[in-house]
């Protein structure tokens, strides 16, 4: 829609003077990081609970409850949260957004961790027990190291889900708190300014940088650990 006239840094400068937009960007990142963190912890515990469930029926029930949040549409989840928060008297804002993001990320983490648990040979645990490990040792020294790739994957899935979620967030923001997706959407009526283009360019560069760094870290780790023998 805009005619290209030449290169300039004008919109980047304007972006950094727009404190409101910067606050919103920070909000978005903070919510993404924290919700991913909490949902990873809870999701991991949830996966362990499902794995350890004795009865087959309980296991299936827990798993289908977990899937309910995955199959229900975002808009429904968002509207339900809005109703829940207003009934419970939770003020819409940072905490309502954080809580709802944690809630919709947990099932994703569970689904990322569970296959890893299923993959693990039960004799591994038997061996650990046999060699004198108590339950805590089994959990921290055998199970978690084994499933940690799943945990990391879950964390990053939760992070991306939270970063790009619009529909749930849309319902539960309020009182001056907003995230990037909601803010950009509300600019639609008057046309989106080039600030947003500048911001998108920056975000893209940052993500690209993170991916490159991640690539080098894994490269180094692979070298260090030699022939697939896990070091602790």
């Amino acid at each position, binding site marked *: 829609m805009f005619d290209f006239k030449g290169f300039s840094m004008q919109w980047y400068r304007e972006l950094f003077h727009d404190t409101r937009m910067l606050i919103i960007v*920070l909000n978005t990142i*903070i919510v993404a990081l924290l919700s*991913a963190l909490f949902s990873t912890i809870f999701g991991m515990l949830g996966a362990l609970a499902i794995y350890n469930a004795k009865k087959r029926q309980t296991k299936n029930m827990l798993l289908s409850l977990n899937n309910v949040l995955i199959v229900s549409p975002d808009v429904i989840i968002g509207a339900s949260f809005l109703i829940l928060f207003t009934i419970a008297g939770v003020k*819409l804002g940072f905490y309502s957004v954080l809580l709802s993001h944690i809630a919709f990320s947990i099932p994703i983490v569970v689904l990322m961790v569970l296959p890893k648990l299923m993959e693990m040979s039960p004799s591994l645990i038997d061996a650990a027990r046999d060699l004198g490990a108590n339950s805590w040792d089994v959990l*921290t020294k055998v199970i978690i190291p084994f499933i940690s790739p799943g945990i990391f994957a879950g964390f990053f899935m939760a992070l991306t889900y939270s970063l790009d979620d619009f529909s749930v967030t849309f319902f539960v923001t309020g*009182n001056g708190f907003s995230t990037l997706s909601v803010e950009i959407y*509300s600019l639609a*009526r*008057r*046309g989106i300014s080039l600030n947003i283009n500048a911001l998108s360019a920056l975000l893209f560069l940052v993500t690209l940088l993170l991916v490159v760094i991640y690539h080098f870290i894994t490269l180094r780790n692979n070298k260090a650990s030699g022939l697939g023998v896990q070091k602790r």
Partner: protein
Amino acid sequence: MKKLLQFFLTIVIVSAALLMVNANLNSSQGYSGGNTLTVYNWGDYIDPDLIKKFEKETGIKVIYETFDSNEAMMTKIEQGGTNYDIAIPSDYTIVKMVKKGLLVPLDHSKLPNLVHIDQRFMDLSFDPGNKYSMPYFWGTAGIVYNPKMLGGKKITSWNDLWDPDLKNQILLVDSAREVIGMGLNSLGYSLNDTNKQHLLAAKKKLDSLMPNVKAIVGDEIKILLANEEAAVGFTWSGEASETISNNEDLDYVVPKEGSNVWFDNMVIPKTVKNIGGAHKFINFMLDPKNAAKNAEYVGYSTPNKKALSYMPKDVVKDKRFYPAPELTDKLEVYEDLGKKNIAYFNELFLEFKMHQD
């Protein structure tokens, strides 16, 4: 396990650092502390300098929040859990909000600047006596067209759209009220007409427009017209001025048979916390100088008569966006026709969309 803990710890530290930066930014804006006013407005619909000026003059810090549709805004206010002090809904939404008891009546004695508003825009059907609302911006619905693509041909009325030369050139908006209203207007009926005969006649007339219609679209109409994908499009004056600034060849016209006139209005929702501050804000925005500055930034038409004298002559004299009283008399506000009639409008519009010769 150690690696995992380290990783989680890093995340916690990073988010704590970000939270601190954020809190710093927030307090530098003065958002923490009690004396605040939350304004709920359309995105980018106010001059940010005016917010700064208001903060300086009154010492009240403004929290600015945005919405993208009247319906979304109403839901947020209806649900509660928020404390908006000012909201800016469009005309038909005000009727709904009053019905649901979502608005607080205005205290006119605290709004001395309301004398500057043009009498034409006061006491309208959606809010008799301006009990709940003050006009913020107004505009019309009309036709944007590209004279260059039409070989210099001019469009002045709705009926010009039925010209066979315009084959496959017209873009319409995907909205029942607007399109059926166009049909009603072209036959000389009122936009709020609910007479079935008149409506059927309008629908029939619209069906004969179909060969000229290129597409029925949404917001992208602006881009399509600016890029000369089509020569003629139905749109609102605010969007028209934006489209014209992107493509100087385009022109905007309010059809002479009459058309829709719309208002965005300042109201105080029932979620208000700072009612004194809210009145101060409305009065501040009604100040002619401020209204003029705001109109220049946003580019929509201001209902403030005195403000016009502070604005560039060529803007105020532009009959396309500040139509003369003779024409505004023919313009109508959409009235709430009730569920049944609206459903009938939608049904007719659906039939029109599916119509094929």
